[in-house]
């Protein structure tokens, strides 16, 4: 059996609408946050979990961490049913919510860690060892005596991560961990997660809107929309499905009119620079370049890198999310 095994998870929320004038009772609507969601994750996997806002990502995390009880379906994480054995389960998992802190605001983070040690009942020697390793990897050494409120967002996120890993969880849920971080902090965070996964075999489920996070970290992606799983597989496979258009820009030496392009290509001209959009599966790139070269001397040519965000947006549109 896989490490995480979800089978037909369903969760419905009842939302009461605001009462309209002349209406006696408030209307209720049912929102199906998760609709018979099934998947399995092996130990040591690093899985990206994406989908537009309201797709049910956080609900999944809350179910798998034991905060919520599903209306239907079952799930087992490391053999445990999270919502039935919440406390037992909690000592084996770590959760970081990007928008919610689990450390104490006004005290030095070391004090927070010490209290977490008490809460998780981590033996003193194991705690010391773990804390040393984590403070080094996350470069928290000098910050340990600083109260949380004085830390920058990036530092705070590192502290949160440290706090959630102190008890050595076998499974880590990350809910938008890089939200609001600058480039340096993001890269450092990704490096750290990669290391943690490799060294300790920690299974990671990463919820994010940052596609760079996914492409840097995750070998596997699950896409969720309207509570259903829409895709489960490797990122390149996902992109291949939607990545049908490429863009190149070029500039000729001197005034050269653009040759006649085959149908299906679009061209914008701007101050001597041409921007050509084409579909590589219909018109191979080499053929296009040959055609362009035949018209004149190319001084400059750039192929625009794929923009994952655009692709995902296109994908959401196509899946009607």
């Amino acid at each position, binding site marked *: 059996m896989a490490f995480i095994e979800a089978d037909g998870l369903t969760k419905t*929320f009842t939302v009461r609408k605001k009462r309209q004038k002349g209406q006696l009772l408030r209307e209720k609507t049912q929102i199906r946050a998760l609709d018979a969601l099934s998947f399995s994750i092996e130990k040591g996997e690093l899985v990206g979990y994406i989908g537009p*806002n309201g797709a049910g*990502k*956080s609900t999944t995390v*809350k179910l798998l*961490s*034991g*905060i*919520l*009880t599903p209306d239907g379906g079952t799930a087992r994480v490391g053999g445990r049913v999270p919502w039935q054995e*919440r*406390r*037992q*389960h*909690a*000592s084996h*998992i770590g*959760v970081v*919510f990007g*928008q*919610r*802190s*689990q450390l*104490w*605001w*006004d*005290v030095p983070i070391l*004090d927070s860690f*010490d*209290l977490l040690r*008490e*809460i*998780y*009942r981590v033996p003193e020697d194991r705690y010391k060892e773990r804390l040393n390793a984590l403070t080094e990897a996350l470069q928290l050494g000098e910050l340990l005596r600083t*109260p949380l409120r004085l830390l920058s967002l990036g530092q705070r996120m590192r502290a949160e991560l440290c706090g959630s890993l102190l008890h050595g969880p076998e499974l880590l849920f990350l*809910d938008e961990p890089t939200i609001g971080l600058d480039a340096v902090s993001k890269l450092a965070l990704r490096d750290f997660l990669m290391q943690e996964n490799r060294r300790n075999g920690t299974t990671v489920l990463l919820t994010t809107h940052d596609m760079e996070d996914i492409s840097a970290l995750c070998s596997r992606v699950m896409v969720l929309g309207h509570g259903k799983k829409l895709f489960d597989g490797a990122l390149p496979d996902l992109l291949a499905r939607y990545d049908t258009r490429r863009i190149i820009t070029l500039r000729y030496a001197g005034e050269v009119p653009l040759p006649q392009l085959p149908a299906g290509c679009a061209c914008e001209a701007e101050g001597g620079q041409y921007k050509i959009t084409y579909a590589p599966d219909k018109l191979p790139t080499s053929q296009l370049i040959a055609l362009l070269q035949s018209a004149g001397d190319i001084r400059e040519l750039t192929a625009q890198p794929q923009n994952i965000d655009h692709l995902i947006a296109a994908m959401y549109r196509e899946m009607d999310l």
Partner: protein
Amino acid sequence: MNTIKLYIKSVGMLMKSQLQYPASFLMQTLAQLVMEAEEFLAVILIVDRFDRLNQWMPGDLFFFFGVMSVTFYLTEIFGRGITGNFPSLLRSGQLDTLLLRPRGVLTQVLCSAVDPRRIACVAVGAAALIIGSRMAQVSWTPLKALALAESLVFGCLLLLGLFLIEAVFCIYSVKSVELVNAITYGGRSACQYPIDIYPRPLRVMFTVIAPFALVMHVPVGYLLDKPLFGWPGWTAFVCPLAGAAVFALMYAVFRRAMRHYRSTGS
């Protein structure tokens, strides 16, 4: 055992965070002192006007006031998580964070807040107790001390139990219900005077529903050698257990309610 250690450690840390803003802390404590001293003054003025209520002399009434005040504000200092912070814990989603840890929810809620400013109110209450005890010339015995201690401890449990009602309402509706204040804050205001000065409906309310009379007034009547309703002495030791009963009942209800918890936001 471990839970108690955790609680003590948490309280220490919370106190430390409050003292990060010493000026603010001092001012607020002072404000509390003024507020509770006014309450006491109100009792003094009333007593001055009537010079006795039923069989209760001024000293007796100060004693009643003191017991309520000390109990109520001790509960507020150490049980702030339940008496004040629970609604915001729910609304802000911070409760989720607590649920992610391998500890009981109530333990962690209690560990999440203290209100040391209320120490000023406890001080006023203690002063009222001492003044009342002197004026009423209470002849202290070990048994009487035990009765008082029991009353204070079970009084705190009773209040925690009553505040849990509000918490339960919050879980279902995610907002606080002012109605519950009628028996918590209302109970404090009403029951700082002995129950037998009130008409029947109020007596029933504060004996059966929110048994302040059983937890506080019966033992205090015993202490003052003026048994409430003429009940025998042993009732002073048995009746306060009603506080534990209310707490146990509400704790069970709270646990059931938590199963319906639906969390907020992402």
